[in-house]
């Protein structure tokens, strides 16, 4: 019950940020929502099923380009984002069905290769994507800066609410149970009747759908995308780190991790411009070494210490 209260407080808190009327704060909150969507999505395949996917950027870029291209044809934002989600879902199911036969490092590298593959396709399909020149996405309506910032903030926020609901549902449903079995003993899971191919593919497809939609919103938000930007490897790595901060296997943890990470990155970047990447890097190394199960494990450890 506890985690539902935590997630409700976080979502409502984030949803109140536009009240401050500060576009900088709203921009940070939009980014936090976007990364929270990606971290919680990654947690489905990486945290619950134990398959370390590095394909997040592939879904993000695919969604961004799908929605961006549709927008240049004048398709409205909610429709283009929904289609971006659908395309990501189908793409993730197909790729997942093939790649989920691999395990561990092999799976990680194969998913990483899909990102590179899509990046190259986006680079080469100049007629459709504009190639390396990038793609300009028209603004939908003439809104002032604050109104536009609010529109995109709420788009990301709604997406986060949907993602959180979906992830929490998966966690407590039969699907989540199956993923837990697969993570801990895939052979043993098959033997008691778990169709592991089906559940793994479903988890991978679900981890793609919301990321694709986030990419779709992002494209319209920044008005300009290029392959190196939306297929950036950091879009793959950061959600993994965020999920690790929150504690592997918990979608609430992943969302908290995303917010903590975005806030820390911003503070460090503002105060230590020259060493910002170094400090973030050291923080991650320290985290993996000393708290491999995230900050969520601190509570657990204390429980073990006092019987």
């Amino acid at each position, binding site marked *: 019950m506890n985690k539902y209260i935590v997630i409700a407080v976080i979502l409502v808190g984030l949803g109140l940020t536009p009240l401050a009327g500060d576009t900088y704060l709203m921009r940070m909150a939009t980014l936090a929502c976007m990364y929270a969507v990606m971290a919680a999505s990654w947690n489905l395949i990486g945290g619950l099923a134990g398959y370390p996917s590095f394909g997040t950027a592939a879904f993000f870029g695919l969604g961004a380009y799908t929605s961006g291209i549709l927008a240049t044809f004048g398709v409205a934002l909610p429709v283009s984002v929904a289609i971006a989600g659908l395309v990501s879902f189908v793409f993730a199911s197909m790729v997942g069905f093939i790649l989920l036969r691999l395990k561990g490092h092999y799976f990680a590298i194969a998913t990483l290769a899909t990102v590179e593959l899509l990046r190259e396709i986006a680079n080469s399909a100049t007629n459709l994507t504009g190639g390396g020149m990038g793609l300009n996405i028209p603004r939908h309506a003439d809104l002032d800066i604050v109104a536009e910032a609010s529109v995109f903030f709420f788009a990301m926020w709604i997406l986060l609410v949907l993602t959180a609901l979906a992830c929490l549902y998966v966690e407590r*449903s039969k699907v989540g*149970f199956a993923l837990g079995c697969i993570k*801990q003993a895939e*052979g*043993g*899971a*098959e033997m*008691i*009747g778990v169709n592991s191919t089906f559940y793994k593919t479903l988890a991978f497809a679900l981890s793609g759908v919301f990321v694709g939609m986030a990419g779709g919103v992002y494209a319209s938000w920044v008005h300009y995308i290029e392959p190196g930007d939306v297929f950036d490897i950091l879009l793959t790595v950061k959600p993994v780190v965020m999920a690790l901060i929150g504690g592997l296997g918990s979608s609430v943890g992943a969302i908290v991790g995303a917010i903590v990470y975005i806030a820390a990155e911003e503070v460090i970047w503002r105060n230590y411009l020259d060493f910002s990447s170094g400090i973030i890097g050291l923080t991650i190394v320290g985290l993996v070494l000393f708290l491999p199960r995230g900050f969520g494990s601190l509570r657990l450890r204390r429980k073990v210490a006092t019987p």
Partner: protein
Amino acid sequence: MSMLELRSLTHRFGGLTAVDNVTTTFEAGRIVGLIGPNGAGKTTLVNLITGVIRPSSGEVSFNGRTVTGLKPYHAAHLGMARTFQIVQPFSEMDVVDNVAAAILFSQPDHSPASARSAARPVIERVGLTPYATKPAAALTLAMRKRLELAKAIAMQPKIVFLDEVNAGLNSAEVDHASRLIRELADEGITIVLIEHLMKVVMSVCSRVIVLQQGRLIADGSPQDISHDPAVIEAYLGKKYLDKRQGHGDR
């Protein structure tokens, strides 16, 4: 009618023929011992039947239906359960969830909650109730073997392959497991017992089949098997057999 039928089942790992042209049948409600020296192909045979690996040639039919090369989860849905020689529990889950998973994914119309409550009687039956909320990783080997057994029972199978469920247990624990195995057979479940403890095989099984180097070398009652020269040779060597026959059968 025989429940499970193997026809010329063969499996090769590269140049090694692990299971060589095995043909046999298993009847409902009986306890069949599957014995043989280490590396005879016992576990490989079970892996072929339950779909973990595909046979190189030959056929498996279950309740009159050809099931050769089906997936393990499909075998589970048809009513085949097995335990692993090297136990494979869901180590971070507690005992209840381990058994609940077996119920949830082998039978239709269960939710995680209903599977958890259905798991309780099975846990009680194998004597794991005091450990119900312990993670599987915290159990001793004997307890983990019982957990494997509980998961197999929870699936309400028609046939169960027990791969060395008694290995590493003390004699009180072996007695407990043997009693449970007999009870299951009385309920009409076919049991295939892979076992190295001859005491258990002799007391529990009504029929024993013997594998050596992938081939079926003997099939009969425990008493017949224990006097079969081919079996004695397989276990103790030809020299021992010659010596024994030279001195007369004592």
